[in-house]
């Protein structure tokens, strides 16, 4: 029964986001970016495949971030703001199932979007491959239609799943969707630079300050750890163990964020 109920909530979230017009704006933006990369590819000789791959992967990541932050954050915060949560919580739905269901629904949305954009990227790369003469193809670091790109896509998906969990956490305790967006973006930016924050102690004189900043660097999720775009684009091998460790990191941190979200949400009152 628990799984069924979570599934029901997740499906509802999926349907809600699909009908959300913001989603189409993001999709259009992504498509534009991808088209732009094709144009750029036409201009620079030989590096065009690299540029399409670079831009394609970056676009997939950026679109994922936008979806997560602007749709995901509103997930819980909007329900509370609009008070549609009153009738929902009167149903036999334990609070933790609500949180998990919301999470599952948004991750599903992100997954579907990433999958769609990946297919589009591969189609473009296939077209690029088909229209390029053999000697140009030989100059590429890695083949155009390279299955190794999927490694980067997988890690991008893991990164987005983690960001979604963070967004959900902020959505459960903040009273306004706007603040949830601010916190989530702040966490994300800090997470991108978490490696530098962790090494802060090496360059700062005051040890107390260094410890605090270092601690922030260790606690904030390391979003930069999911970035293997350069490696896959150049055809550099990414060991399976590296990917596994990274995915494990994501799973552990997601559990942390969801547990924290459940903790906060279970205690919330709704006036």
């Amino acid at each position, binding site marked *: 029964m628990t799984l069924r109920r979570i599934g029901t909530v997740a499906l509802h979230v999926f349907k809600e986001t699909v009908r959300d017009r913001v989603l189409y704006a993001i999709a259009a933006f992504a498509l534009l970016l991808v088209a732009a990369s094709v144009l750029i590819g036409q201009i620079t000789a030989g590096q065009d495949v690299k540029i399409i791959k670079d831009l394609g992967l970056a676009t997939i990541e950026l679109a994922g971030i936008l979806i997560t932050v602007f749709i995901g954050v509103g997930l819980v915060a909007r329900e509370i703001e609009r008070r549609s949560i009153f009738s929902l919580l009167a149903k036999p739905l334990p609070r933790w199932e609500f949180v998990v269901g919301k999470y599952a629904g948004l991750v599903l949305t992100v997954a579907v979007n990433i999958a769609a954009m990946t297919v589009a990227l591969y189609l473009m790369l296939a077209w690029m491959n088909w229209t390029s003469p053999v000697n140009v193809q030989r100059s590429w670091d890695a083949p155009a239609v390279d299955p190794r790109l999927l490694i980067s896509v997988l890690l991008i998906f893991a990164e987005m799943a983690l960001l979604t969990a963070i967004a959900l956490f902020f959505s459960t305790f903040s009273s306004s969707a706007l603040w949830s967006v601010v916190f989530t973006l702040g966490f994300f930016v800090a997470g991108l630079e978490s490696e530098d924050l962790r090494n802060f102690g090496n360059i700062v004189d005051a040890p107390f300050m260094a410890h605090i900043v270092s601690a922030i660097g260790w606690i904030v999720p390391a979003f930069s750890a999911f970035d293997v775009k*350069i490696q896959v684009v150049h055809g550099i091998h*990414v060991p399976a163990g*590296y990917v596994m460790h990274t995915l494990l*990191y994501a799973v*552990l*941190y997601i559990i942390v964020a969801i*547990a924290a979200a459940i*903790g906060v949400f*279970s205690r919330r009152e709704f006036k």
Partner: protein
Amino acid sequence: MSARLRTIAVLGVVGIGLALSALTLHARDERYTLPGTSEHLMYLRSDRAASRVMLSFKAIAADVYWIRAIQHYGRERKEGGRFDLLQPLLDLTTTLDPRFNIAYRFGAIFLSMDPPNGPGRADQAIALLKKGLDANPARWQYAHDIGFIYYWYTTDKDSAAQWFEQAARMPGAPSWIRPLAATTLVEGGNRAGARAMLFELRNSEEKYVRDAAERSLSQLTALDDLDALNLLLAQYAARHDGTYPASLIELMHASGYPQLPLDPARVPYAYDPASHTVSVSPQSPLNPMPKGFRPK
């Protein structure tokens, strides 16, 4: 589940989860180094591209690259590297923020330092400081630093004197630079002149500059010590029919000094009986001794 139990459970999961996740990441980075990661630092290869892309976040980006330059320096020094990325990182930093004072001055010092403490690239250091002068024409300190690098890390005393001259002419330059130019011109490699310059640098606001000056002063003291030791050796040879002592201790006793001489880093000087030369011990942290100066 009661509320209190649930709170404890949540806190437990969060605490353990954070610890485990940090450990996982740490384990991953220990086990695997992904090639291409240093390229990752230079994610934007051309600094012009960096400028265009980062627009209003240039200053923050400059700070980030500055921190990376320092980390690179520290890491290379610890692991005995070649400091390949030091110049590009400093170049990127100063392109993003042309007013980044310590990037120019600190960067130049460490680019100049000889291996293993640095890449030993006085030419790159001078180029960096010249770039700083282009962007900040009123900064007499950069001109002075260029002069100092010529003076201390190369044998080109003429260029050193020229740059001191130029610095002395710039607005705000202190009065002691003028005589410095004169001294350099006339005597080319005078320790007293170098000492005077280093004493000034020892009062700098930047810690790195102070430390470098302190070190150089210690090296000068060592050179003076070596001169004195060489004099003692000559006197010994004169007294002993052209033979030289078998060890420094013997020399010291014969000359009437009770103790073994120590350099300013408290490491005993080295003596090679075969060639009867004294030098700073290879174990001493004062190494490498500066090129432009040799014991008389």
